[in-house]
């Protein structure tokens, strides 16, 4: 009950804020898009694995969204769906290889894949637009042509719905047999195999879900900006997503969005006040979180809202 009140309050905040401060629409949209990518990383953290390359799926989905928008001029809702599917398919293929590895090897192999993608996008400029990236015209949303402001407002609504549905999906997944088996990978993969459960198959399922969520975030990011660049898949972006997961807390889907909002707004305001030093402030915040609140911001209130176990 308390959790529902908390989530409703957060959602109200995300809805009301841009109404009174329209210039905050874009930061809120970016926070929601980031939050979805963080949700993907949280799925992997559930299995005790940290990926330093998950931004590649957001980047892939962003480029897929852009390419489809430029070629077929589809509606934004279809672009989001297709971008997400592209990321999920890529996750399914990369995951076949990736689920064989654990720990630092898993993290670094993801990083390696993301850097390959980053290089390919930068080098094949004729197709990808190189380091300048690709732009696309604002698509219809719900088959309605909207001006920039109306489009952003509608996209914000779509992003909120996506965030709520994805959060519910992930929480449902965590409670499912697959989700519980995924969590068991963290503590005892040997026992899983000796129960007759394929740890690799379970992890692959989690990896594909993670890629799809990052892709959903990437598609929304691309639609918000109307532009994609290889930077979307750069390792720093993957690091940011992991940072946000630690900041918000990886024990619950809500933590992903809390972290994403705090990150986006700290970046926004600190960049304005301490130009060029916002990374320093974020670094100090991360240090504080690791020492004082290792379960993240949501972890601090989790026990009161849910009980001892998520």
């Amino acid at each position, binding site marked *: 009950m308390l959790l529902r009140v908390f989530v409703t309050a957060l959602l109200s905040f995300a809805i009301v804020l841009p109404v009174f401060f329209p210039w905050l629409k874009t930061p809120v949209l970016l926070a929601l898009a980031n939050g979805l990518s963080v949700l993907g990383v949280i799925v992997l953290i559930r299995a005790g694995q940290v990926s330093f390359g998950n931004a590649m799926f957001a980047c892939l989905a962003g480029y897929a969204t852009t390419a489809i928008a430029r070629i077929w001029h589809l509606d934004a809702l279809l672009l989001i769906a297709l971008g997400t599917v592209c990321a999920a398919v890529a996750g399914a293929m990369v995951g076949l290889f990736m689920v064989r590895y654990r720990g630092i090897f898993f993290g670094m192999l993801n990083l390696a894949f993301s850097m390959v993608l980053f290089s390919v996008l930068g080098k094949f400029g004729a197709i990808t637009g190189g380091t300048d990236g690709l732009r696309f015209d604002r698509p219809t949303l719900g088959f309605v042509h909207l001006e920039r402001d109306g489009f952003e407002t509608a996209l914000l609504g779509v992003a909120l719905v996506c965030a709520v549905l994805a959060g519910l999906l992930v929480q449902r997944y965590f409670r499912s047999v697959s989700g519980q088996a995924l969590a068991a990978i963290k503590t005892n993969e040997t026992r899983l195999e*000796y129960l007759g459960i394929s740890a690799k198959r379970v992890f692959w399922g989690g990896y594909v879900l993670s890629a799809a969520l990052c892709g959903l975030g990437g598609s929304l990011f691309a639609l918000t900006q109307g532009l994609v660049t290889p930077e979307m898949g750069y390792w720093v972006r993957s690091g940011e997503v992991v940072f946000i997961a630690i900041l918000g807390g990886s024990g619950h889907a809500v933590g992903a969005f809390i972290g994403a909002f705090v990150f986006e707004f700290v970046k926004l305001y600190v960049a304005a006040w301490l130009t060029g030093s916002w990374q320093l402030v974020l670094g100090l915040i991360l240090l504080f979180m690791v020492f004082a609140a290792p379960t993240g911001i949501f972890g601090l209130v989790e026990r009161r809202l849910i009980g001892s176990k998520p």
Partner: protein
Amino acid sequence: MSAALLSTKGLSLSFGGVVAADSIDFELKVGERLAVVGQNGAGKTTFINICTGFLQPTSGHVYFAGQEITGHSPRDITLRGVGRSFQLPQVFGEHTVRECLLIAASVRSKKRGGFLLPLEKAVDADSVDATLELLQLGARAHDLAGALPEGQRKLLDVAMALMGQPQLLIMDEPTSGVSTDEKHGLMKVLMRALDQRKVTSIFVEHDIDIVRAHATRLAAWIAGKIAADGPPEQVLADPAVIRNVIGE
């Protein structure tokens, strides 16, 4: 009491110059309760590891219920009906005791879409609760598995294996790490559970009193070979077993 449930033919495995399994021919019948004894390094755990797919033999064959399982994965062998518990209990430390059993029970769940259903709804929760009671873990059902004392972790390890409805359960030192006072009580609980579920069993054991009390058959391992095999009292009277396993 006649059909061979598990058998091996010429089973061998060497680690460099160390022969851990030396051409072992072995047969276990349905309903038997076999104790395995031997000094450290005699090859007991190696034999278990080969039979459960953890190690691949250098040569030889393993058969379960008439089917060859040599070189099969632990998962495949488990699904065929061979359960296993470990010397160091293998449980999901961050899950509760009940959740551990629910996950274990999901493997045999026949509910459609079971793997995506909430854990509680995906399996027959009554059978989980019955197993918890059978192994005297009901009072600890909502405790974290990682926080259990060693004896109860051993029971949980076996309980998880039992949820897979095995025909054969292989237990590696089920009483190791448990105090002498608790050993017999723990074995009584385990054996009652195996009897009730009609599970044939193999257990590696160092405590001869436990062997005498609970085994229907005893095999003594010496240097990678079965040196003596038969009724416990007969094997325990074997001079080689007295000299190499029990001590003078």
